[in-house]
């Protein structure tokens, strides 16, 4: 057992070290969320206010925090493809450790990086004018951020374990991220959406992540903390199991 913890730890450590050493990656992945926050926040803010929605930045910031997490998390998967390309994947695959520990170590490493990005965006949002109403619940928000990060890192990693093509990965991930992000309630309130679209939104794991983070920070909540938490836990465990299975089938 101790040995397994060590294995997960060393895989996690590797991921974090690589991130820490790649400053352009850190800064580059902040550009998009900041742009969204400023352009949408200040662009739609007045209309949102007029329509009686209140402060839009207040509403938007949790969504953009979630967005920065999902982007970083999903794209972490590309490291699997890099590792395959540059040979390092073999080193981990021949090691006498269970496949789930490889999947878990990689996922936790990527998730740590993604959560960190989310925290940085949170801090930037504070400078832009985001004032969380319930500062005491920031820790609850952090828990939801971590869950979202774990789910989407595992998701991206699972996809990457089946792909050999470095060019295809970003295309596929973008194709997945965009609908996940736009149909999550990150940009608009889910309450006012009805019909098929609402159904789609309520099957999107990110919706629950955004809901949880927003609920914790601003008190505006749609599904409720229990639903958010339960849904995220279930999908996370499922995707970790699928990812482990896919990893056990990888041939190099």
């Amino acid at each position: 057992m101790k040995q397994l913890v060590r294995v997960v730890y060393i895989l996690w450590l590797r991921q974090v070290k690589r991130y820490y050493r790649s400053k352009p990656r850190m800064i580059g992945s902040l550009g998009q969320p900041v742009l969204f926050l400023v352009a949408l926040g200040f662009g739609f803010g007045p209309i949102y206010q007029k329509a009686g929605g209140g402060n839009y930045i207040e509403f938007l910031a949790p969504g953009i925090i979630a967005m920065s997490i999902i982007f970083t998390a999903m794209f972490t998967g590309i490291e699997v493809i890099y590792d395959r390309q540059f040979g390092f994947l073999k080193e981990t695959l021949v090691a006498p450790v269970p496949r789930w520990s490889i999947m878990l170590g990689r996922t936790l490493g990527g998730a740590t990086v993604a959560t960190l990005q989310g925290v940085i965006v949170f801090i930037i949002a504070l400078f832009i004018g985001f004032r969380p109403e319930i500062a005491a619940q920031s820790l609850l928000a952090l828990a939801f951020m971590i869950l979202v990060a774990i789910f989407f890192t595992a998701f991206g990693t699972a996809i990457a374990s089946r792909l050999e093509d470095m060019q295809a990965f970003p295309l596929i991930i973008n194709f997945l991220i965009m609908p996940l992000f736009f149909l999550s309630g990150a940009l608009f309130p889910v309450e006012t959406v009805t019909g098929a679209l609402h159904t789609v939104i309520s099957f999107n794991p990110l919706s629950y992540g955004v809901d949880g983070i927003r609920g914790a920070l601003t008190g505006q909540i749609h599904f409720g903390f229990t639903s958010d938490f339960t849904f995220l836990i279930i999908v996370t465990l499922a995707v970790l199991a699928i990812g482990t299975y896919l990893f056990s089938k990888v041939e190099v």
Partner: protein
Amino acid sequence: MIEVKNLTKKFGDFVAVDDITFSVNEGEIFAFLGPNGAGKTTTIKIFTTLLLPTNGQVLVNGFDPVKQPDDVRCSFGIIFQDQSLDDELTAFENMEFHGVLYGVPKDTRRKRIEELLKIVELWDRKDNLVKEFSGGMKRRLEIARGLLHHPKVIFLDEPTLGLDPQTRNHIWSYIIDLNKKEGITVFFTTHYMEEAERVAGRIAIIDHGKIIAQGSPQDLKNQTNTTSLEDAFLALTGKTIRDEGGTAVERQRIRNRVWRR
């Protein structure tokens, strides 16, 4: 230690390994020789659970890589033919990563890392990122890493390719020492025939996926009426140069891509 029965590996309609049968005894130093593209690396990948065989049976340390991959993985160490280091980590971190993955206790790990990095003359560069290393330095680091844990059997896929004679000598004497002191079985491939002749107890020669000869270096020379292993090898495999056409897996990748279109 290694039992191979009627092993076949196909990539699409390309037969990389064609119905081979041989065995390697415990404590033996066994050379697996063959021209480029003969099927050496594919065979090693099947032994080490990285590829699934199409047909036939393999036992490594008594375990089946298909059915008992975890037991097999506990039994071997490997030095790959192509690069397998993390460029973004330092030499020491690469060693440490490997040691933890293989459960080498901390004290032993630190002691061996120092010992091995000194043998490959990288100790004073241990805190440099691997991406700053030259090709030869990376190779030496990979060898040091492969020897960090002491398995039952060690696979060396062209371990000394591109190294100077001094380093090759150091490394081989370390490996032979391991073999003698700890009884570790050594299974290696190489293109340096004098190296195989010097260190190997027994040799198998593979060509076009088939084993065409096996025995001690002396047996092979006797069979072909030659005086050196190099001549014996050439007599057995012919003198035409082989077009490698990428590794077997690359071929499969290319084929898959064509198929998708």
